[in-house]
């Protein structure tokens, strides 16, 4: 008895796709390479642009920072008098202005946005849900100058009337406007984070007898903590960098605020309103770029902190 001939059943090379069998680089191979290269360029360009902007901003402010800048004055004085005969560049009031407006905005916007996200993600159903999502996203599309307009012509008289104060342009006004501007993006990101929590968690928790609110508080929010934190930080970043609306609604007066009705001036608004009137390369020009570096560094620190916090949570 001869052993069965196994080789007879093996597929012969001719049975394969002849082009593959011949080890030739076909169209699919080149397309693959091209696609990889294209995606690489897309990915790397983000890094290049960020570095480019940083280098540019730093370069423009460099001479001023190491030449004429009095660091102590910059951080502790409120005297921002770049056009005076004896110019001083104290940016404390501007920093406090930006911080107070952003802080106030977050104070009112974070609960509002997280509440909206919770409602949309956990409770709203069907048409209500869809309508809300679309409306929230439409809010994000309103140009900032329109928000500034709202701050000047609607909020300003409203604040004057309601609180009986002489001027309605200040921390309160700018904070509310900024809060409303940051709310859509925070709501959308937070809602995505909540929706990313698998429904099986909700079912399992409810099967254990948890109420809807207990499920949200003990399961959904802890599980989506990273995303919610990211949403809040994006909102902070939005508030920090916003220029036009803050310029219009804050009163744009150099001042350390002692009440929500006081006018302030933000870092961003200062750059926007003064850069056009400066001598290129002069001290004032350099000082404005220094403000830019400051903004850049603070944003960087916020993002880095967020990253570390998020990583810390993840590790735990």
């Amino acid at each position, binding site marked *: 008895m001869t052993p069965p001939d196994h080789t007879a059943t093996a597929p012969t090379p001719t049975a394969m796709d002849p082009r593959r069998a011949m080890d030739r680089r076909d169209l699919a191979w080149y397309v693959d390479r091209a696609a990889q290269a294209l995606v690489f360029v897309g990915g790397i360009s983000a890094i290049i642009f960020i570095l480019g902007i940083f280098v540019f901003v730093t370069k423009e402010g460099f001479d001023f920072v190491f030449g004429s800048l009095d660091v102590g004055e910059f951080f502790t004085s409120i005297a921002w008098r770049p056009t005076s005969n004896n110019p001083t560049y104290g940016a404390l009031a501007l920093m406090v202005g930006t911080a107070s407006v952003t802080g106030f905005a977050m104070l009112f916007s974070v609960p509002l946005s997280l509440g909206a996200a919770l409602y949309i993600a956990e409770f709203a*159903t069907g048409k209500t849900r869809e309508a809300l999502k679309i409306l929230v996203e439409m809010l994000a599309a309103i140009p900032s100058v329109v928000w500034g307009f709202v701050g000047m012509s609607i909020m300003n008289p409203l604040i004057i009337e309601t609180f009986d104060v002489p001027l309605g342009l200040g921390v309160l006004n700018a904070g509310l406007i900024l809060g409303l501007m940051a709310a859509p993006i925070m709501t959308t990101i937070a809602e995505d984070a909540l929706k990313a929590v698998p429904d099986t*968690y909700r079912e*399992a928790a*409810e099967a254990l*007898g*948890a109420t809807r609110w*207990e499920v949200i508080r003990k399961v959904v929010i*802890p599980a989506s903590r990273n995303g919610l934190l990211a949403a809040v930080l994006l909102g902070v970043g939005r508030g920090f960098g916003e220029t036009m609306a803050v310029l219009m609604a804050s009163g744009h007066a150099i001042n350390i605020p002692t009440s929500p009705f006081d006018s302030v001036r933000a870092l961003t608004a200062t750059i926007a309103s003064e850069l056009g009137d400066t001598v290129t390369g002069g001290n004032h020009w350099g000082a404005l770029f220094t403000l830019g570096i400051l903004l850049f560094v603070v944003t960087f620190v916020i993002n880095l902190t967020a990253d570390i916090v998020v990583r810390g949570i993840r590790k735990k």
Partner: protein
Amino acid sequence: MVDGSPALDGSGALGGSPALDVAAAPATVNAGTGPLYGEPPIIEVRDLTIAYDGQPALRDISLDIFRHEIFGIIGPANSGKTSFLRALNRMDGFNPGMDVRGSIRLNGKDVNDWRNVYALRSRIGVVFPLPVGLPLTVYDNVAFSPRLRGIRKKVDLDEVVERCLTRAALWDEVKDRLDSLGSLLSGGQQQRLTIARALSQEPELLLLDEFSIAVDPVTTMRIEDVLRELRSELTIVLVTNLVQQARRLADRTAFFLMGEMLDIGVTEDLFEGKVTDERTTGYIEGRYG
């Protein structure tokens, strides 16, 4: 049998009349910890019909489940087994398209008459096909339900966690890593964790939905041992796609096919061919699945 008096002769019901005897309780029962066929059932289901967006999933199911019994439900996919379980603890709220008709009574009270559905659910433990470890530590997973009930003291929680993990045959494996995430356990350990979690509710009814789908055979056997022991404390409804698992565990078994209950009876009787519908035997013998 609808009046609640249990049958003393299960085989008689399986004979002539085409209508299934919903109570179909056997005369002989295991002594001691066995099913209490002489007492009113814990679950009475009458004319249960479930539809999803108008598509029927379960039609006119009537059956009784008795205390301290392991009640098996077998049948191929899409037979309505899971829908049946979901109706028992009113998980229909999760699916707006799910329409439940008929009546389900737990201890004589219709589940739809419960004013606090969360209290109802807390009395019924559920184990899902794929283990759902909440994104919490092993300890917090098991302590979740006790905390909902207001147990706050560490020493009390420790006691509950150890007891439930021990009963689920998991304590020895996880006692040194109670603070690590439940999702880091192996699949079989996670499923035992969900059983421990269900037990932490101190439920009177435990629903298991194809619990062994993602569990290796050795762990499956361990869990089956656990379930046999648990029968002395509570009532178990075991939905399974493993016919032999029903044979090993269930006191009585119902066969669901395409949304209908074709057979119900003492498990051994079904496996010995005492059926009302030929298709039951066909399924049990694996001629289709």
